[in-house]
């Protein structure tokens, strides 16, 4: 029956597809093809630029393939010690931060999903208010100084662990779990913490994965925290190191042991391109595989910027 109607609909559509609609379809596919190319090309361009010789890079233009292929730029980029410390900090912050933030989001959201909990409205309000009013940059900065986190990698982790948005997403998922699932465990004498870890968390794998990824992206991309809270360059995150390399390529080249004036194998253009690639490739590799979880998260949460 259902099949019949679809066939009928298709037939009807076929008859009815006007010239205008055909033109629109062609236009639409062409438009999205161009748009997709526009999204991909910048990344392709820097990869190819970073693999080209400095002479060709200086001539500029479109880079569809490496011009005079060479690895030397990468060799010199990896001579810069900041790359390693930057990656070290970023990996540390991303791994610890992601796990901690996701764990805290789940443990905060779960009690708030229980209507029997006294004070639930108050605690939820406490959470929601942080979305509406923010103390701002300077008080946050002073807090970090006052509690002794200044110039510590933990300053990159702890302030970002509680996110009202993520907690709201998590809570609306917990609300959708039927109460009956917990009842049997409660009769067996399990307490709420046990129920949370053995029943609720395993049921929430998909949502947890989404929150994990949101957090991972946030920590991986964060550079303002470094700018504000970290003084010693050896504790800088990779994004901050990259920013320094881009804004002050000359200095970065000196750190990599270049004598700036006579060097011919690499120049500011190719060094910049290679630094961008080094910082971007992990995301480009992981992204296609995890993309669907992000989409799912937005569908669950309804609203998430």
């Amino acid at each position, binding site marked *: 029956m259902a099949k019949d109607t*679809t066939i009928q609909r298709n037939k*009807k559509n076929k008859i*009815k597809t006007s010239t205008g609609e055909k033109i629109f*379809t062609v236009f*639409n596919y062409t438009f*999205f093809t161009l*748009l*997709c190319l*526009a*999204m991909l090309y910048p990344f392709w*361009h820097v990869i190819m*630029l970073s693999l080209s010789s400095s002479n060709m890079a*200086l001539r*500029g233009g479109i880079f569809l393939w490496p011009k005079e292929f060479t690895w030397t730029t990468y060799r010199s980029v990896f001579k810069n010690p900041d790359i390693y410390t930057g990656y070290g900090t970023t990996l540390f912050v991303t791994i610890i931060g992601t796990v901690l933030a996701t764990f*805290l989001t789940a443990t*905060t959201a*779960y*009690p*708030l999903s*229980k209507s029997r909990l*006294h004070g639930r409205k108050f*605690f939820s309000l*406490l*959470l*929601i208010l942080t979305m509406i*009013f*923010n*103390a*701002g*940059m*300077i*008080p*946050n*900065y*002073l807090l970090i100084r006052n509690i002794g986190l200044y110039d510590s990698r933990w300053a990159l982790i*702890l302030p970002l*662990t509680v996110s009202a948005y993520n907690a709201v997403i998590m809570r609306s998922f917990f609300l959708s779990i039927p109460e009956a699932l917990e009842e049997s465990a409660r009769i067996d004498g399990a*307490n*709420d913490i046990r129920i*949370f870890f053995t029943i609720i968390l395993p049921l929430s794998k998909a949502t947890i994965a989404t929150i994990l990824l949101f957090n991972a992206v946030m920590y*991986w*991309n964060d*550079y*303002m925290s470094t700018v504000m809270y970290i003084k010693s360059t050896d504790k800088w995150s990779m*994004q901050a190191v*990259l*920013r320094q390399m*881009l804004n002050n390529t000359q200095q970065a080249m000196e750190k990599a042991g270049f004598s700036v004036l006579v060097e011919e194998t690499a120049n500011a*253009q190719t060094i*910049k391109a290679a630094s*961008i690639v080094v*910082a*971007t490739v992990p*995301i480009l590799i992981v*992204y*296609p595989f995890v993309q669907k979880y*992000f*989409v799912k998260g*937005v569908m669950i949460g309804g*609203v998430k910027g």
Partner: protein
Amino acid sequence: MTTASAKPVKKPSERGKFAKFGRDLLRDKWLYLLLLPGLVMLIIFKYIPMIDLRIAFMDYKPFKPETSTWVGFAHFQDLFTRPAFLKVLKNTLVISISKMIFGFPLPIILALLMNEMRNLLYKKISQTLLYLPHFISWVIMGGLLMTFLDPDTGVITSIITKLTGQHITVLLDKGAFVPMLIISDIYKGVGWGTIIYFAALSGVDPQLYEAAAIDGARRFRQLIHITIPAILPTVVIMLILNCNNILNAGFDQIFMLYSPSVYDVADIIDTYVYRIGIIKSDYSFSTAAGIFKSVVAMIMMLSVNFAAKKAGGGGLW
């Protein structure tokens, strides 16, 4: 709380109520324990800083806090008489409102166009690629922009030169910097912006389209009468969220790309607060600027939410 005469009558039930309350707390003790760590973090990192908002009303001495004196609203008065701040406020509004005007409708249009794609594989690939820039940090986007806008070798620079005959360094040009901010912001966010509208579109009953087709409605009419009404509530919600950002012109983005030669047009409240507060250590004045920003954001959000509720669009809460 209760008056003396009412006391004897009310007491037993009150006691019962308290006892029940106590039992409930005891019953849920593990839930409270679970809530505790998150709550502590929330209080430390979101609420304790609010205590320091008081320094906006003081002449705060960072190295001798005990000698600070209260000055009332002096810093706020200063705020609105300092030409530097007024310029920064104007820049913030110009940038954020232009971003909203150009950036808000585009994801809606894109989502509607994409919704018309019948080839699912093609649609899927397009979505994946369009979401990608959202996950790239502004540092990397900044690096890409520097490469493409390089005065000597940049691809976009040479295109501009070919089209207009002028050679401009976009990142240092007062006229071109703000349009660059808007375009690059759209580039980064437009694809991801569509996702929320897809969430709304996925809830539309396909039978509606079938019924409309049988009644002779073509794709354009289906769009007008089915698709657009379906996403309208989402559009309202997104508009509310956008208004909350009226003074957020994009700190990450601008901090990465600006330089003294474009301060005139690109310096926004956040970058200004950063320079005055953290670099120059004028905490009181910069906190006042920060409070102004937070209060405006709060008022905007609450009032637009209220208006949306009144209009029947359904607010956020």
